[in-house]
């Protein structure tokens, strides 16, 4: 069938929309072009391997992956409760869970200090006195800060995934004789897989890019708490080429996440 151009009222676009849309797109793309243009392609590998850049990348990779595992372990039950259990104050709980998404990350870091700070944190002093565990200025603190800001992204994706599962699949599995635990693992998780994957990817990207809460709560110690975003910020002064190289890595990773998630987040339907 040949593609005939259909004219209707909805598709006749006023001129200013085109101009605004083009400006909006340019506004978003220009900095990316600027970033890519400044990358010293020849020395790229040299800038990434060895020195503070590779230390920061290694630390970022390790902490963001552990933080993401933590997010999945806590976020899945949280999303389940928010999606499936009607209780008084559910919207309040949801708002609290989503709060780190809109909270300035620095404020998140200050809040984490208030909770897990070694000397006067709510839980931090107990952790230190009982187990000698110090979260501030340690890689563990980086993980906590990353998980704190990434959790809401995961919960949001998985909660909406759970809501979109029609009850009939789990109901028929129940009638067939599967217990609630088996229904969860054999039916719900399978149906939830795309949302789980999307939530995990977005949470990981968020953890990888975390800056404000990390520097406030865990500090900026090279090789210990200096993650890639912190290194980028510092290197911009001392070694701009390395800073651009690291920025490129983060950009590529984020584009990768978006490409992997395009079906779900960019409206493409299979």
């Amino acid at each position, binding site marked *: 069938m040949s593609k005939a151009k259909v004219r209707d009222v909805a598709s006749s676009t006023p001129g200013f929309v085109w101009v605004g849309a083009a400006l909006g797109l340019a506004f978003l793309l220009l900095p990316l072009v600027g970033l890519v243009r400044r990358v010293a392609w020849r020395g790229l590998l040299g800038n990434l391997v060895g020195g503070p850049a590779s230390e920061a990348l290694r630390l970022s990779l390790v902490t963001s992956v552990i933080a993401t595992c933590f997010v999945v372990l806590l976020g899945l039950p949280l999303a389940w409760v928010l999606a499936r259990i009607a209780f008084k104050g559910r919207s309040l709980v949801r708002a609290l869970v989503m709060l780190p998404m809109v909270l300035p990350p620095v404020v998140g870091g200050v809040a984490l200090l208030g909770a897990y700070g070694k000397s006067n944190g709510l839980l931090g002093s107990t952790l230190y006195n009982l187990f000698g565990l110090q979260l501030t200025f340690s890689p563990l603190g980086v993980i906590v800060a990353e998980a704190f800001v990434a959790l809401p992204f995961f919960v949001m994706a998985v909660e909406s995934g759970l809501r979109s599962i029609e009850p009939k*699949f789990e*109901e028929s*599995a*129940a*009638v*067939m*004789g599967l217990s609630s635990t088996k229904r969860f693992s*054999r*039916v719900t998780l399978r149906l939830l897989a795309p949302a789980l994957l999307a939530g995990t990817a977005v949470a990981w990207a968020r953890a990888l890019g975390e800056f404000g809460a990390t520097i406030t709560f865990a500090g900026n110690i090279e090789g210990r708490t200096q993650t890639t975003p912190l290194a980028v910020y510092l290197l911009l002064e001392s070694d701009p080429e390395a800073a651009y190289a690291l920025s490129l890595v983060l950009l590529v990773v984020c584009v990768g996440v978006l490409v992997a998630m395009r079906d779900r987040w960019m409206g493409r339907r299979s």
Partner: protein
Amino acid sequence: MTLQLDGRITRGEFAIDVALSIGNEVLGITGPNGVGKTSILRVVAGLTSLSAGSLELSGVVLDSPTQDIFVKPEQRNVGMMFQDHSLLPFLTAEENIVFALRARGVRVRDARAVATNQLEAAGIGQYRGLLPHQLSGGQSQRVCLARALVGSPSVVLLDEPLSALDELARPLVRTNLRAALQQLNGPKIIVSHDSADIDALCDRVIAL
């Protein structure tokens, strides 16, 4: 085996009082939309609880709000076919039937053999490797039907079992279903709008 349902089903604003006694027979339930036919099946399956009264199978209480008894659906051994086809979308036609048998504790190899046989008997053996979204409405309905009848359920509940079949396929499926239902012991309930289906399949009919 006798199923005794004497109670009230509440669904939002609506409530219906039902008194049914079903032995080793096929009971047809007819009636206009929204009158609560599907709700009766859901109560028997344990997907909804009674708000008053009781449900018993061969003297065993399955649901009784006053006695605070509610047997979960997974412990009732019911074979149920939902009106909107509920085949698991990530499993093929055959795997869907295997899944139902495995859930009832049948070993993998036996489950596969039974599933293949059932699909062949239903005349849809050639579609066994297809995913639900690749099946037509009628094919998917026949898989659902086969799935509801496997694994020797104590009670069979069929919600509009033949509605998606075209007029050509219908008579044969109807005959096969009649034979399959006769082989199964226990109470069987069919909800249907189609009087020809009800006449051909059921021993007794009630209109809501």
